[in-house]
């Protein structure tokens, strides 16, 4: 109330783009009455690489590594989303084993994504210890991802018709080892944060958005579910093998920062359970289809037969020749519905590639969550939507 009593003039403040809390180089043009946010105008676009335009003169397989860099907190989900859209366009199928592997890697990425959001959120409110724990949990999973793909972040792991290579033989053993460590860290974070007075003061009832507003603005993911709307692409439009697994979609009630934190904490546990189920039911068989028109032949064929050699050569030089058409493929990303709208004209690469990043929709409704609140509350609120600059690149 003091700000109103003092009758100060409105002040315009540029928060970002180069501000430590504005991750991903975002600028917020704020109109302040004292410390109260009267108007907030978020502006994206300071981070621009032209992912969509670049794809137009690459082949389909060459586009895939770029998707790693969209939401870089969960690169494997981006890989899965892109090839699922491409497979839809092509009418291709992946192998049963690859379907399970794709679910496993999607959930690994979801856990790393949620830990990142929680860790950063804690740090920005002064909680250095939970941040270290969250990042430690993420690092354990990155070890697993590194065993699997050879990289911790730039993974480039999925392929049309399957995945690049099979799970390492000791994958399950390593998963069990890291799973226990992650559960311990999850528990510790839960103990330190969930009933922490300071944390609750800063998050409970802060950054609220109504269910109707969230739907109106195209919100998906944790932010939408925190309002009580149980939309999850994995449940609403099941893909891969999600409909064969036993898991629940946690939802909030108030749509505030605390609900989002609680949803993420619960989703981590759900994802761990999904991975356990997938590993238990993982079928044997090939991890990549043997359709040489869309999948690279096994190296055994490439090195020792001319047929495999030519198929490999043509794929590398020309890409995958997709018949003219268009498709929209979508998966549940770390922050909501991640969609790829692809148009093919018969060449080996996309005629047009559009990405529907969940964070872009979140940014267009962010002002509803911060206007009327305090300037300092922008920090936890902005963190709770977990905007990732890489995917709102446009």
């Amino acid at each position, binding site marked *: 109330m003091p700000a109103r009593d003092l009758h100060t003039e409105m002040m315009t403040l540029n928060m970002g783009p180069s501000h430590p809390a504005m991750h991903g180089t975002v600028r917020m043009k704020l109109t302040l009455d004292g410390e109260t946010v009267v108007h907030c105008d978020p502006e994206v676009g300071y981070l621009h690489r032209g992912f969509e335009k670049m794809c137009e003169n690459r082949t389909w397989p060459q586009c895939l590594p770029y998707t790693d860099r969209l939401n870089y907190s969960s690169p494997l989900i981006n890989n899965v989303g892109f090839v699922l859209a491409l497979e839809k366009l092509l009418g291709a199928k992946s192998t049963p084993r690859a379907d399970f592997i794709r679910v496993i890697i999607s959930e690994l990425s979801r856990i790393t994504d949620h830990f990142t959001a929680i860790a950063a959120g804690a740090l920005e409110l002064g909680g250095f210890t939970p941040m270290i724990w969250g990042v430690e949990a993420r690092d354990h999973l990155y070890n697993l991802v590194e065993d699997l793909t050879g990289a911790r972040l730039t993974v480039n792991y999925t392929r049309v018709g399957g995945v690049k290579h099979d799970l390492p033989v000791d994958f399950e053993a390593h998963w069990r080892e890291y799973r226990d460590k992650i559960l311990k860290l999850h528990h510790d974070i839960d103990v330190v944060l969930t009933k922490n007075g300071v944390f609750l003061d800063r998050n409970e009832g802060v950054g609220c958005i109504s269910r109707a507003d969230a739907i109106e603005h195209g919100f998906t993911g944790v932010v939408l579910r925190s309002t009580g709307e149980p939309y999850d692409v994995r449940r609403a439009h099941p893909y891969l093998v999600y409909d064969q697994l036993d898991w629940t979609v946690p939802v909030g009630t108030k749509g505030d920062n605390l609900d989002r934190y609680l949803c993420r904490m619960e989703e981590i546990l759900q994802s761990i359970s999904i991975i356990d189920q997938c590993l238990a039911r993982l079928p044997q068989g090939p991890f990549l289809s*043997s359709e040489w028109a869309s999948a690279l032949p096994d190296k055994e064929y490439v*090195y*020792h*037969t*001319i*047929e495999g050699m*030519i*198929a490999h050569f043509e794929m590398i030089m020309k890409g995958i020749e997709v018949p003219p058409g268009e498709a929209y493929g979508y998966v549940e990303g770390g922050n909501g519905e991640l969609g790829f709208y692809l148009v093919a004209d018969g060449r080996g690469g996309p005629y047009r590639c559009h990405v529907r990043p969940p964070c872009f929709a979140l940014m267009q409704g962010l002002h509803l969550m911060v206007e009327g609140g305090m300037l300092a509350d922008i920090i936890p609120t902005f963190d709770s939507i977990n905007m990732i600059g890489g995917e709102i690149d446009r």
Partner: protein
Amino acid sequence: MTVNPTTPPAPLAPAPSDLVRVVIDGVEVHVPKGTTLLKAARQVGIDLPVFCYHDGLSVAANCRMCLVETNKAPKLLPACHATVMPDMEVQTRSARVVEARRGVLQFILLHHPVDCPICDQAGECLLQDTYDAHSLQPSAHDFRKNHKAKAEDLGPHVMLDAERCILCTRCIRFCDEVAKTPQLGIKQRGNRSEITTYPGQPLDNPYSLCTVDLCPVGALTSKDFRFKKRVWFLSGTATICTGCARGCNVRADHHEGVVYRLVPTYNAKVNRWWACDEGRLGFHRYEVDRLLAPRLAGRDVTEAEALARAAELVKEGASVDLAVSELLPLEDLYLALAFARGHLGGRPVYVTRRSDGVGDDLLVRADKNPNGAGLALLAAHFGVTLKPLSELPAQAGRTLLALCPEIPDGCPGNELPGKGVSVIVTSTFDNALSKKAAVALPAVSPLERGGTYVTFEGVVQQAHKAIDGPAGTHSPWVFLRNLGKAAGCGETFPATRQEAREAVFRAVPGLAEGGRP
């Protein structure tokens, strides 16, 4: 042993009564009697896969890649050889045809070596592309592949890798039918068959490199090009061979400012599919002995110094004469002759040219100059008399402005002017004239400038510029423009070659690209 050439059916006059109705993949088309199924299919936009068939050669029908299903024969027919029959229904995509193509490719690839990574043809290989489009099936065999000779020297320009050969016999038919030098044949039988030359008789006809173009795989490779550059790095520029008066259409393949090869392109009026070895290797002559800096009496100077000295010579000279070359394109010649008419009075213009060599009755002309016809045309247009350079009177105090990029030594008619004549020359090469000249200016080579040429038959053709010349080199007309500016002659010149070309086409009636004036 050579394959018997069968004469392709003579084109028939398309009288309506001779038209035959055929249905190809459900599309009805009327074609003249005697048309092959392959050509009929092209009329409805279907390109059938082929290896042995080539528009410029007789039909061998030995690769079986173009097999199609018809309602007139129980077996599949080779579309390149079978001709249309009334109410024939042709299927080019039926299950039987698809299966046949896979079978054919399986056999063709049976003994094919795993060579793509080291094969020059990879990237422009008909076998790769056809397998990609029509099979993509894994190999069905598990025995050792047959091995054959890997780098067999067939002649001065061509190497054979017998393992890669698919025995389509295009090269044999080319030598028999087009080059009229039956130098190739097949020895052995079955999977031991190999392309070979006769003992002691190399593949040395003047068109031997056309067999490399024709080869659908990497079996025949050009000794000049092999292992020089992966083809996917190359950019192609449509240009004209300047080796003789024929003006063969060629594509200059280049990468990062270096030309790697010239490949003939189809032009029905000029060279059809072919080009001679000498012409297509001729670009190498511009890689050595180049004049790279302006020179005053043997000393390297800046262009400004050279032009200033040239302007002095033009102003001081008792008389100024102009020499041009039959090697120059129309734009340079037009501007030079216009300059001569405006500033040099009615005196003759002197001409340098490559001296005549040997011609044949396929493509090679005895006249080795690419634009003799163009120069004659422009001389007539301006009413200028042309004389050989050797007729230039040796008289002290004269200045000769020689727009002659190449003056080969020892050509009759090109004898250099005697003592006392100050020569200003634009030269591509560091040759006798550039060494002797008072001012020598470095000129670009044909592939570095492009230009419009008129063939001996009067076809007007445009060559596009493929690469940039070395720094400081220009086309002769650019030096003429710069010299005109330095001498203050008041002449207005076009800014670009394109503008110069438009000026020529405007000024000379009836001159149009591709046409005959």
